């Protein structure tokens, strides 16, 4: 265990593992009962499975509880009360905050929260910010267009809670945000990996080195890049400071984070969440390290629209190492490894776009942006990788493509078709990037 100042809440974060599991079971039963008694969605689901909350007595019983996904909330939304439908566990008048998912994978899911839920959001984020070294000496800039998406809202309130000074960069463009960070001497900011790199690029366009802004730490969320080693290195080298990853989703809350000890992955906030890894084929729980599984999340304490065994569609593996920080919370090795709806077979080989990101970002000749398109030509799968050469590397397409081919063959065991695009011509994103398109699914 490190000094107590390392932790936001040493009581939970260093709880002996057997006590932590005991607590998780208590909390799981509590939220299951709440959902069953208050939400028609969960009652329907559990009754159909012949399950009563009191049937869950041991850790092993948890796998009897049906798994939901975002689609379950979507279906429930078509029922009353509008707009949340019958997943809602509280009277509509007790809802104090509305957010929604981005709708990337379909009709957006509407997320109700009570004031207590919102305090909970700030509380769990406070654990993360503290673990990342955010303190009352920090001036935190949040370059986020505060809107219906949950994104950095909770980060804002958590930063206030841990004592930071918070500056919203909502209605400013990238250039104005950079200048505001410089003028105010911000010490930290929060953004998606795409935008962290985009802002570094923005600095250079203004004739500045991002390092001259003297940012001390960056929190990433929204994309897996914060845990992709080569993307993280690019961000850290560009800004000259540590970058910490974090993971969550609108309907689940934020459940994973990196600490200053950098455990080589993400801590799971096991005091507030149950994170299960389930075998990709059999659905059986995975407890051993180094085996990929889909992530199923239960948020123990979010009450208006509970999240009980929700399939996140993300894929990860347990680490075989404990973090030196002394937290007893488990670590997901390398963070999020991809999404089940992105991992697919291409030319008969299991393919994850995150592996391509890792290769592209490892080559200094390549710009930060790229696009990956999978399509069918006749019966043959074809992967097109569109890339940009960084300024100064013009005319080196042949050498770069040979290097890409070698590295990608090792990493993914697949061949690609390469398309070079002028620097700055591929799409730039302010929040989450959409670099991967599988056109075979649109046929």
């Amino acid at each position, binding site marked *: 265990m490190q000094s107590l100042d390392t932790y936001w809440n040493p*009581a*939970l974060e260093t709880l002996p593992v057997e006590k932590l599991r005991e607590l998780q079971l208590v909390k799981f039963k509590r939220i299951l009962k709440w959902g069953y008694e208050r939400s028609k969605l969960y009652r329907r689901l559990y009754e159909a499975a012949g399950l009563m909350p009191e049937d869950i007595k041991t850790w092993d019983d948890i796998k009897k509880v049906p798994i939901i996904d975002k689609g379950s909330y979507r279906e429930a939304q078509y029922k009353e009360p509008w707009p949340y439908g019958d997943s809602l566990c509280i009277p509509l008048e007790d809802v104090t905050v509305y957010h929604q998912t981005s709708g990337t994978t379909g009709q957006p899911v509407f997320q109700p929260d009570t004031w207590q839920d919102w*305090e909970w959001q700030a*509380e769990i984020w406070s654990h993360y910010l503290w673990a990342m070294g955010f303190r009352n000496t920090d001036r935190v800039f949040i370059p986020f267009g505060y809107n219906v998406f949950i994104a950095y809202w909770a980060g804002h309130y958590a930063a206030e809670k841990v004592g930071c000074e918070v500056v919203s960069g909502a209605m400013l463009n990238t250039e104005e945000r950079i200048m505001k960070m410089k003028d105010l001497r911000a010490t930290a900011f929060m953004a998606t990996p795409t935008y962290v790199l985009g802002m570094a690029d923005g600095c250079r366009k203004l004739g500045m080195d991002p390092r001259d802004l003297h940012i001390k730490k960056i929190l990433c969320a929204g994309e897996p890049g914060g845990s992709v080693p080569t993307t993280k290195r690019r961000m850290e080298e560009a800004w000259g400071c540590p970058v910490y990853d974090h993971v969550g989703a609108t309907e689940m809350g934020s459940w994973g984070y990196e600490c200053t000890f950098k455990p080589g992955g993400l801590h799971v906030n096991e005091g507030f969440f149950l994170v299960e890894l389930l075998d990709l084929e059999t659905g059986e729980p995975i407890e051993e390290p180094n085996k990929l599984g889909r992530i199923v999340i239960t948020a123990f304490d979010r009450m208006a629209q509970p999240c009980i065994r929700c399939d996140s569609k993300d894929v990860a593996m347990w680490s075989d190492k404990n973090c030196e920080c002394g937290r007893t919370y488990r670590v997901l090795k390398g963070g999020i490894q991809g999404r089940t709806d992105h991992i697919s077979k291409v030319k008969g080989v299991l393919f994850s776009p995150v592996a391509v990101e890792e290769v592209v970002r490892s080559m200094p000749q390549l710009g930060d942006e790229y696009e990956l398109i999978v399509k069918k030509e006749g019966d043959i799968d074809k992967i097109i990788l569109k890339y940009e050469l960084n300024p100064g590397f013009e005319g080196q397409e042949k050498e770069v493509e040979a290097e890409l081919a070698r590295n990608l063959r090792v990493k993914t065991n697949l061949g690609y078709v390469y398309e070079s695009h002028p620097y700055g011509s591929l799409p730039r994103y302010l929040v989450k990037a959409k670099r991967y398109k599988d056109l075979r699914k649109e046929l």
Partner: protein
Amino acid sequence: MAGETNIREMANLIANIKQDAEKLKELGKNSNIKCVEMNVVRMSAMIKMLELDITDAADILGA
């Protein structure tokens, strides 16, 4: 885990504060003083966080 006794003491104090907050909310409601009732809603949310952070840990540790 260091300070288990303190955790129990904190948990007891949190329980007292919760009880007082509930009393205050009820008084505000019965007296139709909205600012009392609604401020306690926010206060109660913070007390709940203390329960999740401290009381749950104290209970599980049997402290």
